[in-house]
């Protein structure tokens, strides 16, 4: 095994520096070193979407990246979506109101995905929403509440002048 490598990244606004194994995934780094355990690991091979985080503005799979590859970047996890006072962001609020979750395992990946998606696609149609959600598996809801939540979040974000 090689010596640990120092990584430094901004996670939800706070600088994190740690020496990690070269092959430690970004997902494990976020969970174990940054304690952002909202990063959920379902399949660990890029299919389920539970570990989705925003890396330098783009939604990515944190299980398919090594932490060293994200060194120098800014990462937002589900924990970073809410305001400093704990107020939910527009997507999280819509998921709560529209019953977009049941057990909650997929929810962090979904709210991160939807937040990133709506930032680039502020007025999606229903088919576009379904396509955008295709990379996040939910085994409870049947997706209808999730789709309704995305539609509501898009409307409210537009009224508020954009997604935060």
């Amino acid at each position, binding site marked *: 095994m090689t010596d640990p490598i120092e990584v430094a990244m901004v996670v939800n606004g706070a600088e994190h520096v740690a020496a990690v194994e*070269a*092959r430690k995934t970004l997902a494990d780094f976020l969970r174990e070193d940054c304690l952002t355990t909202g990063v959920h690991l379902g399949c*660990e*091979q*890029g299919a389920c*979407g539970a570990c*989705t985080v925003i890396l330098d503005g*783009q*939604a*990515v*799979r944190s*299980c*398919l*990246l*090594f932490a*060293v*590859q994200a060194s120098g970047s800014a990462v937002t996890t589900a924990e970073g979506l809410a305001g400093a006072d704990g107020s939910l962001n527009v997507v999280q609020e819509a998921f709560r109101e529209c019953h977009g979750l049941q057990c909650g395992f997929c929810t962090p990946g979904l709210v991160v*995905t939807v937040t990133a*998606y709506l930032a680039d696609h502020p007025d999606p149609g229903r088919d576009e929403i*379904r*396509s*955008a959600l*295709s*990379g996040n598996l939910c085994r409870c809801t049947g997706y209808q509440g999730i789709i309704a939540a995305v539609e509501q979040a898009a409307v409210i974000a537009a009224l508020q002048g954009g997604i935060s």
Partner: protein
Amino acid sequence: MMALRLARPEHLVDLNGVTELDSVQAIDGLLRIGAMTRQFVVGADSTVADQVPLLALATPYIGHFQIRNRGTVGGSVAHADPSAEYPTVVVALDAELEVSSTRGTRRIGAAEFFEGPMMTALGPDELLTAIRFPVWAGRSGFSFREVSRRHGDFALVGVAVGIELDESTTIRRAAIALLGVEGRPRRAPDAEAALVGTAISAVDAGEMGRLALKPLRATDDIHASAEYRRRVGAHLVSQAVEEACRRASEVDGD
């Protein structure tokens, strides 16, 4: 491959820092795309859409947008999954693969590059650095279609088609490549030969589908039977041939 525990390489080299590999260049009748160019860049690049429309048409079918944000052209091609989209475009257009090693650089034609499922002509010491896509000038139209259980799943079967017309409505050049049917992307030379020299009004699209699938030995597995792949594949070929012909006929001659 590592996440699936299919590979445990002793050494890993991250190419993300090699910025020379991230480029889209139009040069002398071809489009050269660096191996580390992200899939979402290819899908959104206006030069790509203009010069190699098949790439733009194929990109939305690759995984999900979170995957395309990180996935690269070279990664998809060197991985050589039988269901992958970019390898099929490479084969359809007879693109050339630029590879490098400490022994030097060489170019490999698409027909020699893909050897089987996840198997390519790349040597163990070689690195895919760029792909050279021929640009079809003139009156050409393209189509890309695939069928999967859900959007973003691995394709069960799919097809890439290119059609180029002469000054009137006769087909001058035709390319058809199928994914997911065999262990690597396969061309359909009989159907292509039947299309060339035919006026688009006389094209029997259903027959082209039959001709395209006839010589192929379709994969039979848990995801789909060989018969399903053959029937759906033939149907996709006929749809894509019709669409590519229509698109080519809509391009103004000059």
